């Protein structure tokens, strides 16, 4: 029987993979992708909780809707920033964007 | 019966003036200066009235006001003055007024300067009139920021850059206040159980009688306060900010800083150190006396070899603070009377000194003693001011400095004869360096290069007349000051008597 724990496991794995990518990818577009992965992991958790803990309320689904909205905004603005940075600095590699150092 | 809230009025007059200044266009320089002068005159007038109206016979706090502010923490907006704080408040306003006129010729961003000056004065005055420790700290911190800005922008760079001087001054003050803050919090937390905690100074002063402060705690907490107030008072070896700071600061700031700000240290030591933590004071007193003697002699000798006028006066003020410390640490009524009176006396004379140096520097663009000389030819009035301040500084009878010093000596001699003798030796060295600068700056052959330098005239004379007349009047009639101070010290008499007999568990260091 597939239960809550299974879904949470999938969510965890997805989150951790996304995190790994977030920390290691040099290309900002790839970093954005990894953020999407992590957001999805969260959504899985939300919906799984909604299904198995409070199936009659569907609050988790509402929240995941909001998450998706925010994710959409984030990717839009994020990509716009990437274009901007690319336009100004001629690079999309995160480790080149280090002018905030000492 | 509701009485007119004089202290609040005094406290908020400069703030009000500052707000008015804020609304003026920056081009209206004359108007700005005029408003600053009027503001300070009103504040000074109110203070002078208070000084006059204070009832010596009914000693203790008068003109009190109290409004609860943060009851949960035991903070209230409580004001009141007694014979200790009123002279210092008077001094603040006196020097403030003089400082406004001493800055009359200032042409670099006068609007900001006078606004900051008024804030500074509010802060200083606030520390003296409040009866609540929390408000005390609040006002104290209010002082630090304007000073920093004023030194950095309007200061002058000589041996050290003005930025360095400003930083040193500010960081020292903040460091001192950090120690102080810890001490104050320790007092607050230990004085009363949760729920009845209060920042009220009177209540805190009761706590040791109720046995809420153990002797060890008092010793520890007093050390914290001593570090804080001591560095504010330029106690050796925490004095090195003082000469550099004064040298870098503009005239008005030097006047206020040397004149009154330093005195917050002495005031705090008495108000908090002695009244709240008497056993701590008794424990540390021998150490303070030792350091104070070093203060007196060391600073006087160093002043002897200085080349910059402001450094001489800077070190001289360090030296004079040594007398204040000795008077405090001798812990008897006579010496404490002297210590408080000496704070007042030193405030007036050092402010006058700095005002005169400021004038000389404005005209001649130098403070280097070997470059100066014979100024009595071109500036007889300034020379008179120098003479008055110098003579008061070396304790000439008939000027304000003598009686306070004498009282300190009488008190200190009783408690610490040997240290007192060393300190009295300081009067010889004081005479040496004071006469040296008087001779080298004022007297000697006429120097044609200073012929274009005008003497003080018109409004520039205000600081000289104001401070000079106080120097003389309070010197000839010292009871004007001593009576006031004594009425503030009198309530301490039982405490001092008890302290004298108190069996001290650890016995007092070095004794």
């Amino acid at each position, binding site marked *: 029987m597939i239960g809550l724990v299974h879904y949470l496991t999938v969510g965890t794995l997805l989150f951790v993979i996304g995190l790994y990518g977030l920390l290691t990818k040099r290309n900002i577009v790839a970093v954005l992708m990894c953020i999407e992965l992590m957001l999805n992991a969260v959504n899985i958790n939300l919906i799984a909780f909604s299904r198995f803990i409070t199936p009659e309320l569907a609050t988790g689904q509402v929240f995941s809707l909001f998450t998706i909205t925010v994710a959409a905004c984030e990717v839009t603005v994020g990509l716009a920033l990437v274009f901007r940075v690319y336009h100004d600095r001629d690079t999309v590699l995160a480790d080149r964007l280090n002018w905030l150092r000492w | 019966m509701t009485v007119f809230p004089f202290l609040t009025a005094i406290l908020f007059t400069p703030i009000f003036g500052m707000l008015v200044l804020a609304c003026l266009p920056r081009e209206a320089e004359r108007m700005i200066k005029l408003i600053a002068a009027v503001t300070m005159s009103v504040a000074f007038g109110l203070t002078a009235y208070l000084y006059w109206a204070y009832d010596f016979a009914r000693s203790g706090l008068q003109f009190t006001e109290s409004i609860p502010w943060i009851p949960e923490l035991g903070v209230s907006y409580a004001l009141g003055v007694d014979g200790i704080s009123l002279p210092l408040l008077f001094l603040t306003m006196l020097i403030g007024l003089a400082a406004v006129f001493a800055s009359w010729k200032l042409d670099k961003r006068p609007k900001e300067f006078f606004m900051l000056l008024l804030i500074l004065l509010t802060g200083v005055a606030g520390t003296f009139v409040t009866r609540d420790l929390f408000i005390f700290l609040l006002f104290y911190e209010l002082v630090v920021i304007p000073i920093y800005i004023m030194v950095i922008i309007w200061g002058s760079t000589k041996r050290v850059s003005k930025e360095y001087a400003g930083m040193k001054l500010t960081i020292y003050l903040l460091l001192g206040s950090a120690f102080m803050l810890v001490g104050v919090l320790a007092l607050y937390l230990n004085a009363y159980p949760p729920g009845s905690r209060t920042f009220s100074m009177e209540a805190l002063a009761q706590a040791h009688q109720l046995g809420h402060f153990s002797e060890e705690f008092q010793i520890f907490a007093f050390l914290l306060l001593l570090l804080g107030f001591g560095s504010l008072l330029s106690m050796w070896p925490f004095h090195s900010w003082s000469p550099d700071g004064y040298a870098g600061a503009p005239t008005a700031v030097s006047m206020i800083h040397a004149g009154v700000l330093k005195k917050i240290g002495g005031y705090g030591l008495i108000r908090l150190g002695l009244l709240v933590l008497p056993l701590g004071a008794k424990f540390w007193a021998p150490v303070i006396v030792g350091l104070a003697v070093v203060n007196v002699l060391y600073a006087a000798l160093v002043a002897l070899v200085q080349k910059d006028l402001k450094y001489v006066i800077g070190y001289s003020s360090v030296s004079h603070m040594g007398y204040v410390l000795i008077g405090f640490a001798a812990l008897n009524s006579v010496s404490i009377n002297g210590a408080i009176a000496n704070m007042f006396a030193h405030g007036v004379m050092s402010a006058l000194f700095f005002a005169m140096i400021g004038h000389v520097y404005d005209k001649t663009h130098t403070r280097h003693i070997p470059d100066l000389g014979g100024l009595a030819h071109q500036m007889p009035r300034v020379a008179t001011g120098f003479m008055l301040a110098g003579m008061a500084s070396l304790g000439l009878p008939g000027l304000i400095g003598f009686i306070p010093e004498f009282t300190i000596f009488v008190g200190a001699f009783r408690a610490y004869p040997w240290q007192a003798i060393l300190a*009295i030796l300081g009067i010889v060295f004081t005479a040496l360096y004071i006469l040296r600068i008087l001779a080298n700056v004022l007297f000697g*052959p006429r120097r044609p290069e200073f012929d274009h330098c005008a003497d003080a005239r018109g409004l520039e004379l205000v600081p000289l007349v104001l401070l000079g007349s106080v120097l003389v009047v309070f010197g000839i009639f010292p009871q004007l000051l001593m009576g006031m101070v004594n009425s503030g010290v009198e309530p301490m008499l039982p405490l001092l008597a008890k302290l004298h007999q108190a069996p001290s568990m650890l016995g007092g260091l070095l004794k």
Partner: protein
Amino acid sequence: MFHEYALQHAWLIPLLPAIAFVLIGLWLRRVPLLSAGLALAVSIAAFLLACGVGQAVIAQGITVEQPFIQRVPWVAISGLSLDMGVFIDPITAMMLVVVTLVSLMVQIYSLGYMQGDPGFGRFYAYLSLFVAAMLGLVISVNFIQLFVFWELVGLSSYLLIGYYFYKISAREAAKKAFITTRIGDFGLLLGILFLQILFGTLDFAQLGLAIPAYVQQSGTGLLTLVALLIFLGPIGKSGQFPLHVWLPDAMEGPTPVSALIHAATMVVAGVYLVARVFFLFDLLPVALQTVAWTGAITAFFAASIALTQREIKRILAYSTISQLGYMMLALGVGSVTASMFHLMTHAFFKALLFLAAGAVIHALHDQNDIFAMGGLRHKMPVTFAAMTVGVLAIAGIPPFAGFFSKDEILLAAAQASWPLYLMAVVTSGLTAFYMARLLFVVFFGPEKPDNHPHEAPLSMCIPLGVLGVLAIVGGFVPYTYHFGDWVRFGPASHSGLDWAIAGTSTALALLSIGLAWLMYGSGRVSAERLAWRFPGLYRLSYHKYYIDELYQWLNQTVVGGIGRALYWLDLYVIDGIVNGLGKLTLRLGDGLRKIQTGQVQQYGLVLFGAILLVAAWLVWIEPALMGGVLS
């Protein structure tokens, strides 16, 4: 009755000149005539009041045992109260008269001497301040009042020595005077503090009662120390060895000032102080011995310097020091009468000498070297006469004033100890010699062709005349009217003249004058050859025993050196620590900022590492700990 009024209002005597000082100093100093007029008017008033007080003392039978005292509280705080007041006994009365008289004379004299000086008004302001302070000192009722006016006297002396403030030498002399006397004041202040602590009062009358009781109870040990400390004050102020160095330099001031302050009045303040508190010294033999020996050594030592000096005012200055030594000697051997008597006569003849010297200097346009003068007796007969009277008086030739007073001192010394007497007698011979040298060199011999001397104006001659008369009769008249019955300590002594002592000193003085005539008047004995014979002694004397150089060295090298060393300490050790702490903070920050790589992902790595640690703590370690505690 005027004398009753004067007695009750004796406080007016110092107050009037003080008011004059304020008025002149603040407003009138630009109007020379008005300044001088006010100062003179006030001086006359003060003199009249002082005479009234003197009259009252005689009329009302005020004696040293029963002084007239007024007190008003000045400072009163818990544990300490200080009074101001008036203390009048015959000594005070005598001092009041002498001071007001001499100052009046000097002020009249200054009308001529200072004429045309740009600082005329300022000069009279200072003079008034000085007179006020000196008179305040004289009527002091207690130590604190005495100290207050003592210091104010010092201030006015400082101002007047530095009157020609544009002269480097004047400003340095003024500084030196102030600081040297300050060293003495340090001792005086300590002594006063001791008295305050021991007796709780500084009032002369009360101390006079308390001290004998204390001595009976606790012995003299501590009090001797106190007395010696107090004596430090007079050593400084009255130019006693070794703090005499300021007095010759003080001649940089205008000559009337030298006459008034540094000869006749202020410098005797120290003598007056010891006399005033003689109730203390009298009980302490060691202190008295010290006073006597200090006085004798000073007298001899200063006279030996005066022998070789060339500047007219310096010679007079050293003679002043020497005479002050005499007064101290008299006090030390226990004779207040002799000391005060000599103080009075000395005031007359020394003021006379200085004013005459001033007339000479004035006539020769600030020429100071006596060997550049000569033959002035024809052109300046009045001055010559005055100077001669003065010289004869100071030399102790009867019947001039100095003879009587000096004789009393010699007598008292002879009764006390023979070495002191011997020193005093030798000194009196030396005094006669160098004063005669001065007289002969300046007024006899050939006229110098470069000099165009002229007799002094009337305003300068009147004081010379008045003081000349006083220098003649000032000794004889008081002597016949039993000065010693009034001015004394303890029972009056009617010793009368001791003809052996008087004869010896007179003979010695005449001999010395004769020798001086041989050397400087007729030139039969060459002074140069004598100097050449004893080069060491001559140089020692001419260079004033190198004491100035010693002090210079002490001040410049020792005190200045310590100051410089401490400043070094301040800059590099104390400030070094402060700046070091600042630098340490900067370095630390410099190191720590390297952590800011600008790599966002690295920050993220650290962030999640931290989250991991926190999470691991919460999940595993904390439950384990809690469990451990619970189980």
